């Protein structure tokens, strides 16, 4: 076992964390390589903006994906034959944590983590040939058409229909919460192809191009007053027959397969670790006169408590990834991770906003322009923190609300069915 020692106080904050202590020398070297690459690949200005809570722009993401792709690192988890890296689970965890720790744009999940694995697992050779290269190169942006108005967490009640017209399916309906649809090139979606006795039956999965005639994208402005979500309308859209993924009527299975992949990728521990460092920085910013937070037992306890929570979450994630005998099961693990990580992410954002004190009252470009800095902080730090707090309320909603996750966990532990 490596020597367990305390932080190396001289090093920049983001270099130091205790995950390092859990790694062996090879993984630590790997981590340094990843870090060096990421910092070289993304301009510091971009990383600063992202660090402050702003979303990366499409061009920033595209530039980053091009560099990742050149290095062969776009889709680490894919089988090597399809372009994966062959890394171990822990290497992938380290990589993913470094993406967040270094505030690079991040890899959009829709292609790499969601539809990609569905296609190489269930798709036809033609689908693999058509779609996988664009995902790996970062050229194609994807979006996901699952949720519908009124269906929310209850995906199986969806009403979008794909009618079999022989040489094509005729698609009619509406999707909602479609993240990044406004700049996506392609979409994968669920639609009802047959009536079936069980609600989940008769649902199929399709892939198609976003420039197919009949598709309209309408922005949803979110409570952070930004645009990343959309409604997508389908009006007599002709989907070629080879847009059907796998078997007709099995869309529900593919969706579960795909969402299972999603749920292990959402702990955001790297970002959380960075937020802990941001809180420490806030403690030094002297935002409230007469209050030195670094000597305020109440603030320090909040910080220590969320740090302990985060440590537990990191270990739980490792336990799940290592698939050890004593880890949570494949059924409960993702829900445990999602509940714990939602709690931590939201607590961190809340602590940051609380610590901003009265500056949490102002927001937007005018606010950023009106201040050069606030205390020791750049004014967009404050604005971005509010961004993140507001949009971060969705962490306990998307991908199955906290309530749905609790339903799942309860089902695993109780014999009684509700």
């Amino acid at each position, binding site marked *: 076992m490596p020597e367990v020692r305390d932080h190396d106080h001289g090093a920049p904050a983001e270099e130091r964390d205790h995950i390092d202590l859990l790694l062996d020398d090879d993984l630590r070297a790997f981590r340094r390589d990843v870090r060096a690459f990421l910092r070289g690949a993304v301009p510091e200005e971009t990383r600063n903006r992202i660090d402050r809570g702003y979303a990366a722009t499409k061009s920033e993401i595209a530039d980053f994906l091009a560099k990742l792709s050149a290095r062969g690192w776009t889709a680490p988890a894919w089988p090597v034959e399809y372009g994966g890296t062959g890394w171990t689970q822990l290497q992938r965890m380290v990589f993913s944590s470094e993406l967040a720790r270094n505030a690079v744009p991040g890899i959009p999940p829709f292609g790499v983590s969601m539809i990609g694995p569905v296609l190489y697992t269930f798709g036809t050779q033609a689908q693999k040939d058509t779609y996988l290269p664009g995902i790996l190169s970062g050229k194609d942006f994807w979006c996901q058409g699952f*949720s519908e108005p*009124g*269906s*929310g*967490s*209850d995906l199986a*009640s969806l009403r979008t229909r794909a009618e079999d017209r022989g040489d094509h399916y005729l698609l009619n309906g509406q999707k*909602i*919460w479609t993240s990044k649809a406004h700049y996506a090139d392609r979409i994968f979606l669920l639609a009802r192809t047959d009536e079936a006795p069980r609600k989940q039956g008769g649902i199929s999965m399709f892939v198609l191009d976003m420039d197919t005639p009949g598709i309209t994208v309408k922005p*949803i*402005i*979110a*409570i952070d*007053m930004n645009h990343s*979500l959309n409604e997508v309308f389908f009006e007599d859209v002709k989907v070629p027959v080879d847009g059907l993924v796998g078997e007709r009527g099995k869309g529900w299975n593919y969706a579960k397969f795909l969402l299972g992949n999603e749920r292990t990728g959402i702990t955001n521990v790297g970002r959380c670790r960075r937020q802990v460092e941001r809180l420490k920085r806030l403690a030094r910013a002297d*935002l*409230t*006169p007469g*209050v030195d937070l670094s000597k*305020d037992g*109440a*603030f320090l306890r909040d910080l220590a408590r969320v740090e302990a929570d985060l440590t537990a979450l990191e270990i739980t994630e490792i336990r799940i990834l290592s698939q050890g005998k004593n880890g949570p099961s494949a059924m409960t693990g993702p829900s445990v991770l999602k509940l714990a990580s939602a709690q931590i992410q*939201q607590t961190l954002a*809340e602590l940051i*906003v*609380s*610590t*901003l*004190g*009265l*500056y*949490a*009252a*102002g*927001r*937007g470009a*005018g*606010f950023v*322009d*009106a*201040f050069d800095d*606030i*205390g020791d902080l750049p004014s967009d730090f404050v604005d971005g923190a*509010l961004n993140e*707090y*507001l*949009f971060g*309320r*969705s962490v*306990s*909603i*998307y991908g199955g*609300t*906290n*309530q749905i996750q*609790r339903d799942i966990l309860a089902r695993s532990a109780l014999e009684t069915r509700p």
Partner: protein
Amino acid sequence: MTFLEHLTPSDETGMIRDAADKWAAGISDADVRRSGGFAPGRWSEMAAMGWHGLLADPDHGGLGLGPDALSLLCQAIGRARLPEPFVASSVVCVGTLTALGQDVTALVDGSAIAAPAGFGLPCDGGPSGVTATAGAEGHNLSDMIDICESGPDTSEFLVATAGGDGLFRLPRSTPGLTITHYGAIDGRNLARLSFDGPVPADALIATGDAARAAIRRGTTLAVSALAADATGTIEKATELTTAYLDERSQFGKPLAAFQSLRHMVADLLVELEASRSMAELAAFAASDDGDPKHLHDRVRARICRAAQSVGQNAIQLHGGMGMTDEMAIGHYFRRLIFLQAMMGQEAGALRDRATTLARDIEMQREVAQ
């Protein structure tokens, strides 16, 4: 007045409440969105009903009412989430100026709007103060005030110096005063003020103890008004949420049929009642000229927590729809964030109260020894 009497509004106060409720109920969410940070029409309507002069002496056209009536009016304003600087101008400035016997006629009739700077809003004053040094023909002011609730329509500023021993009344056009506008998280108008240079001698309207007493009065009224505003906001957020749950279905039944969501609603109601109680206490404690800080710190803390909890849980109960700008709930959520910042956040209010408690404990230790 006893607290029990306070709980039974006088006829006059009851009329204010009924008028405010009726008026605010007629303002739609769409109206509020359309008007941005300030609707001159609404400001005039409030003037016509005498509300800007609620706290002012009848000499200046005021109604001469107190925190009780103010609380009920501010709850109605909170319910409708009106963005106008009512608390800033008609509560803090009119209340402070009235305490000093200053003329507030223009504020009362709605033709002028004032903003407090360096005190009152936020109710712990804020992180920067203005320093005043005596000059040849008055005082030189310098330094910045980061957060002041004022927009393009603000006509004058009531500026507290750092330490609170001076209070200046300055028109917008004061030379050396630079106003940088920006927006609040809930859409209202804020500004950063920068002072650099001399102001006329008659701008200094109070000094020393008189200034501190007036500032304390303004702050006391601010806490009471903010507590009421937050309570109205929380009440409406709760109503929007229960209506949504009754209306929407999932998994084949109304959302309101799920026990886990029902129990979250119950917790909203508990928070709402705590807020109402604290708003009552805040108004009662503001009803004379004393310093109710030992009660108002608790009011701020408890209402900030209620605001946080109700805001977050109302969004959660709205699910994905709660994340959209389209639904009103997100706007109420943002207003609650604004109000928490103005009340100094729960953490700040508890820190203030803890300072007093630590002193209590220390004194008891000395008594015990």
